[in-house]
């Protein structure tokens, strides 16, 4: 504890790390879902987030809709977008193996980045709300309102996805199919349809993450790639394919970054995150939270 001047500072750092981590977590949930169901590392996830952020920017700019309300528009639009992307591209390519889908995702990323650059110019954009810079105090700890809102939104979104997976037939089918595709078929489940739904939800989660992004950060078309990388680390922490694990993994990553940037140096924070990530991969390949799989 000698690293920290006071306990309050320590908790402040933990809380800020959590807030930061939730951002990574939301980005990671979609990635994790898609990976769990289709074994596709969808590295364009961060770019999809930024696409959502730009959409929110337009909604705010042209229609003066509050960013939080715009979630209600973004989610259905991105669901449809995800569905189309799966049906139009990934279903076709997924038979050709993981390197092809990775390549496709990368191509999509470049394509979307440049489209956004073309449409919105490289100028950074931002959405300003009444709560952008407000904060309140609990004891000695300062809590940022916008980051709290994002954390709450992220929590709600995660819960909704979790409940969807737990409670609905489609959700159960998704979980079933990601475990065993053929048996799913034997039970009358169309695995392609289920994959399309999963993909759509994954993309919609990118939409939610995008809304969260524009509440906190100014952004430009290239802002998303870093989120893709961090989300990858987060799902490795949480165990590939698990939803709660993705969020938790994100939070762990956020706290780790905050702590190391306070105690060591912000410059090393990234390296420490990556080193921790590699260590986790080596010693617990199923993720910090995953259960060891039987090797049969």
């Amino acid at each position, binding site marked *: 504890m000698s690293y920290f001047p006071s306990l309050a500072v320590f908790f402040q750092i933990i809380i800020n790390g959590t807030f930061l981590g939730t951002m990574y977590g939301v980005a990671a949930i979609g990635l994790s879902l898609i990976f769990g169901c289709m074994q596709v590392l969808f590295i364009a996830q961060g770019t999809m987030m930024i696409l959502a952020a730009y959409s929110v920017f337009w909604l705010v700019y042209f229609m003066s809709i509050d960013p939080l309300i715009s979630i209600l528009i973004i989610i259905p639009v991105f669901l449809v977008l995800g569905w189309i992307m799966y049906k139009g591209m990934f279903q076709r390519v997924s038979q050709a193996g993981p390197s092809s889908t990775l390549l496709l995702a990368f191509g999509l990323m470049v394509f979307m980045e440049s489209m956004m650059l073309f449409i919105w110019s490289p100028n950074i954009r931002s959405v300003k709300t009444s709560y952008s810079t407000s904060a309140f105090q609990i004891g000695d700890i300062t809590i940022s309102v916008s980051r709290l809102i994002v954390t709450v939104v992220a929590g709600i979104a995660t819960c909704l996805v979790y409940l969807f997976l737990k409670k609905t037939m489609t959700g159960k089918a998704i979980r079933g199919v990601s475990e065993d595709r053929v*048996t799913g078929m034997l039970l009358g489940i169309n695995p392609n349809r289920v994959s399309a739904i999963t993909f759509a939800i994954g993309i919609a989660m990118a939409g939610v993450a995008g809304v969260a992004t524009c509440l906190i950060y100014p952004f430009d078309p290239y802002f998303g790639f870093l989120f893709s990388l961090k989300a990858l680390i987060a799902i490795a922490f949480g165990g590939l394919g698990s939803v709660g694990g993705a969020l938790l993994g994100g939070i762990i990553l956020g706290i780790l970054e905050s702590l190391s940037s306070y105690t060591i140096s912000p410059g090393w924070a990234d390296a420490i995150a990556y080193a921790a990530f590699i260590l986790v991969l080596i010693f617990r390949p199923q993720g910090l939270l995953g259960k060891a799989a039987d090797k049969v």
Partner: protein
Amino acid sequence: MENHLLELRSVDVSYGDAQAVGNFSFYIDKGKIITLVGANGAGKSTILNAISKIIPTSSGEIFFSGMSTAGLKPEDIVKLGICQVPEGRHLFTKLTVLENLELGAYPVHTRPFMKDSIEKAFTLFPILKERINQSSGTLSGGEQQMLAIARALMARPKLLMLDEPSLGLAPKVVSLLFKTIKKLNNDGVTILLVEQNVHQAMEIADYAYVLQTGTCKMDGHCHDLLKNSDFKNTILGIRE
């Protein structure tokens, strides 16, 4: 033709260039138990998978209730009323018992009866009710097999196909299982049973087909076959 529930006419199935099933024909009538027996690799599971459309047939036709199933997808087959319990059970091990059962009633037309079907499943296999919220990977082998059958029954199949249900189960459990299968049949479910536990399968079945390397070597009523001296040798692969 109309009176057969399921009919296969000279079906061929190949994996790559290896023919797994050649020129296989058979039929099942409503309310019967038919068993396919034969050594490992004889092509029994392949036939089930071909009926379920998991693997394509290279030639021949499959009829269900007098209707050709050509061009249908696996999920359509389930909607028609054919359910398969795959070899090795293939439960969704991360899901709970209840969730596994619910997924059995995935086809839309079966969902209204879901609660009812679950009740039925629990009366059939009371042990499952005790494990209702346990994840299915933690069940014992016998319980898993029961769950797999119960799951397939959720879709209210007209034809239930069981692939090696006794695999890896203790003898006690096996006889219990076969009793249950017979009971199901008495309740009106037509059953296609693939088994290597020949004796017990033959005891409950009406008619049997003996397969060897993808072709039907002999067929007949079970009690006739059991008396046939060639039968044992065929099964063991001793007879050429």
